[in-house]
């Protein structure tokens, strides 16, 4: 059962101190030269003001760009193999947008749908998500088209919504959220008659995700994908900024005596992703790779897990060097 409270800006500062005293690291959006990245913060003042979105995404908190999976030493006739343990500490992700927070659910589906990924799980276990509702949206945003919303609680342990009087509305959503409140219960006040909806950004849905999912199997051989991807340069930026893209590569870093195996972000938009050793490539054209991106997120993934592998954050659109716009491309597919 969700508990709804209120916290003042001053009390929030005290809560940050309490979180620090409890041994938790706080990561929040910090701004450097126009980029907004997750950085370690001690006070709310260090959190980027009025940021719309992280430039990359919060997925790196649970799925780092590069992560060691194992290491080894090689000797004549012998190999000493060592398991890797992720270096983690209790962490509060503060001020994540609801779209970012809901992305963790998609990642969980990927990393645990069959066998369990201990690296991902160890990080999630130590993580508490404090979401921050959106009071503004830009043209790339389309969370409401894929089942999310500017005040969605999905994926947050605790969600803050800025109130007009400088306070924050606090929704305590999970046991982890309750632990945060329990650190300093006196900092929270009762919230009476606050209209959360009225405070949120207004964002009309652009397309119906379920209709799109139903439509895609019939569009597989459509010219649409070639048309849309004609200007795609196959850089993979869309996947790297995406909160739900989980495709990865496994690479070896070694010399003749020792080595380590690393997991690195990868993208289905890159040619090498599917290239066989024989030279054969099942998705040799960029159009096929663009189609894979769309189909994985909006057809295959929903068929397996019941929801889109997209949170409508629009980061891919903002990052694209050739201005491909996911919201528009999906709207176009719906109307085809």
């Amino acid at each position: 059962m969700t508990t709804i409270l209120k916290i003042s800006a001053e009390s929030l500062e005290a809560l940050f101190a309490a979180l620090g005293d409890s041994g938790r690291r706080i990561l929040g959006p910090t701004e450097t030269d126009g980029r907004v990245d997750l950085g370690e913060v001690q006070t709310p003042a260090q959190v980027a003001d009025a940021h719309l979105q992280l430039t990359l995404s919060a997925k790196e908190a649970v799925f780092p760009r590069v992560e060691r999976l194992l290491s080894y030493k090689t000797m004549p006739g012998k190999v000493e193999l060592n398991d890797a343990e992720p270096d983690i500490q209790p962490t509060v992700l503060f001020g994540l947008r609801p779209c970012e927070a809901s992305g963790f659910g998609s990642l969980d589906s990927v990393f645990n749908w069959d066998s369990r990924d201990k690296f991902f799980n160890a990080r999630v276990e130590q993580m508490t998500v404090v979401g921050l509702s959106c009071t503004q949206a830009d043209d790339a945003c389309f969370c409401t088209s894929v089942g999310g919303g500017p005040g969605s609680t999905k994926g947050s342990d605790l969600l803050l919504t800025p109130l007009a009087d400088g306070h924050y509305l606090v929704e305590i959503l999970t046991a982890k959220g309750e632990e945060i409140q329990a650190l300093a219960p006196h900092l929270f006040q009762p919230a009476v008659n606050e209209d959360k909806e009225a405070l949120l950004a207004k964002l009309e849905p652009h397309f119906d995700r379920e209709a799109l999912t139903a439509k895609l199997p019939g569009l597989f051989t459509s010219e649409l994908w070639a048309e849309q991807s004609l200007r795609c340069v196959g850089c993979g930026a869309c996947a790297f900024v995406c909160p739900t893209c989980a495709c990865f590569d496994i690479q070896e870093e070694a010399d003749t005596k020792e080595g380590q195996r690393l997991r690195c972000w990868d993208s289905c938009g890159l040619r090498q992703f599917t290239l066989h050793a024989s030279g054969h490539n099942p998705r040799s054209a960029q159009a096929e790779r663009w189609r894979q991106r769309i189909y994985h997120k909006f057809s295959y993934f929903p068929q397996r897990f019941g929801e889109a592998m997209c949170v409508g954050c629009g980061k891919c659109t903002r990052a694209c060097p050739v201005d491909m716009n996911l919201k528009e491309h999906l709207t176009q597919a719906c109307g085809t």
Partner: protein
Amino acid sequence: MAERNIYLPYLMRIAKITDEAPAVKTFRLEFINPEEAANFEFHTGQFGMYTAFGEGESTFCIASSPTRKGYIECTFRAVGRVTSALATKEEGDVIGFRGPCGNLFPLEQWRGRNLLFIAGGIALPPLRSVIWNCLDQRDWFEKITVVYGARSVADLVYKHELQDWEARPDIDLVVTVDPGGETADWKGKVGFVPHVVEQLAPPSENTVAIVCGPPVMIRFTLPLLEKLGFTPDSVYTTLENRMKCGHGKCGRCNTGTSFICKDGPVYTLAQLRELPAEY
């Protein structure tokens, strides 16, 4: 409670190396840890990730049969970085193995039926596992026929086993090489696999066809089997897309709604028709 690291391979010692064909070798691998050896189980059709420490992992099938315990075998061609490194290994060296991954050939469902195996080139190894398994449970099946072709006599793999199969009365073996690939003393057939199958015209009644080979062989063989009356659910094949994780996570082998590493690599022709041809 710490979770198991699904990316950690078993350490395996190379017990035996067989040179099969130019750049093609078979490793017999034994577990270094006896506990792992005792607990290891797999089914025919499954595959694994093989590590050349210092270079990385490469994916290929388990070419031996689960009926033969205590070891696994793999057969590979030195093509890329990892397989080239594996090819330099010697008996006694240690490599890694992660698996088994994927689904299996449903031998139970094939009981009482005829089996027709059709393999081309380096694609015999995955079927060799099934053939061994079926021969070790010979009374489950009626007639067993194997059609195997390679570019040249030198490129045929498992040459000694082919002789053994040839000598067995309970298996019909047809070996062919592509035109121009024969030697002066070649006694087998000369011709592409689909042509040989066409001449052979195996009856489809109560028969399962198991086909594995290069795309061009598959492309010409499948329509032929349909012409012979094989239904799409009685034709099986095994796919091998590029893979990294083997757990349906890294995304590479994703083809339609299927992860070849989890939902495959074994598919019936009927199932393949439901997938985009991205393999």
